[in-house]
């Protein structure tokens, strides 16, 4: 039997990798992919808790997380296309129009 803590530790390690990618990468596409990675790590821990607590609530929450992730990917990539049309770059530190 695999202990619950292994799943939770795996989930937190993947979350931290996604956090590093989100903070450190310059490309906006890679930042979106890091957000997807973080959402997936949370899903792993939710499913693990659902299994070990013998309750369905965790799996239902995963549904809503997947829904929000899909909506976020669609909106985010649309913003990326709109940004690329105005200023042909996807590097976040080159988009500094608001900087006075």
């Amino acid at each position, binding site marked *: 039997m*695999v202990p*619950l*803590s*292994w799943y*939770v*530790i*795996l989930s*937190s*390690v*993947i*979350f*931290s*990798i*996604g*956090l*590093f*990618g989100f*903070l*450190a*990468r*310059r*490309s906006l*596409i*890679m930042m979106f*992919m890091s957000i*997807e*990675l973080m959402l*997936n790590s949370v899903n*792993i821990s939710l*499913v*693990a808790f*659902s*299994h*070990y*607590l*013998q*309750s*369905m*609530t965790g*799996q*239902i929450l995963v*549904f*809503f997380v*997947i*829904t929000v992730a*899909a*909506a976020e*990917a*669609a*909106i985010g*990539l*649309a*913003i*990326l*296309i709109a940004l*690329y*049309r105005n200023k042909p770059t*996807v*590097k976040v*530190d080159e988009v500094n129009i608001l900087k006075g």
Partner: protein
Amino acid sequence: MTIPQLFFAYFAISTVIMSILMITRKNPVHAVLWMLVLFVHIAALYLFLNAEFLAAIQMIIYAGAVLVLFLFVIMLLNLRKEEGERKYNTFWPVCAGISVIMVVFMLVILRKIEVIPPLGEYSIEKIHTEGSMMSVGKVLYTKYLLPFEIASFILLVAIIGAVILAKRRVE
């Protein structure tokens, strides 16, 4: 180590390695392909946790829809010419430090986590007799009906918002 622990060890180690590979690729297409393999492994972890329906959903929505969307946008923007530049911010060591500190804290906190006994009614036997889909559906369409409707509304907002944002303005 028993057989389930060996399986878990394989999936855990390969998931971590693939996410590191995914984060550090320079070409976004390679990163998307690593992410595809990663999502298949995560779906296998869901199968391991008795969530067959969620594993199927993970394959269909993430590996099928979201990654294809990412690939479409990468192809559309034609990012090849930016490959020679540097990948990371100037302050990336700080970010790495934050991540490492977070991993250490989580290891210290979560090492001893346990399940406290009042368990729910969905034991493994009940899910096996009822079927994974039926047990998910029963809870989703009774107790969580209102959040389900709100989720559909979020998807509607995403459809309209994506079209409006990405549309070219015609003067």
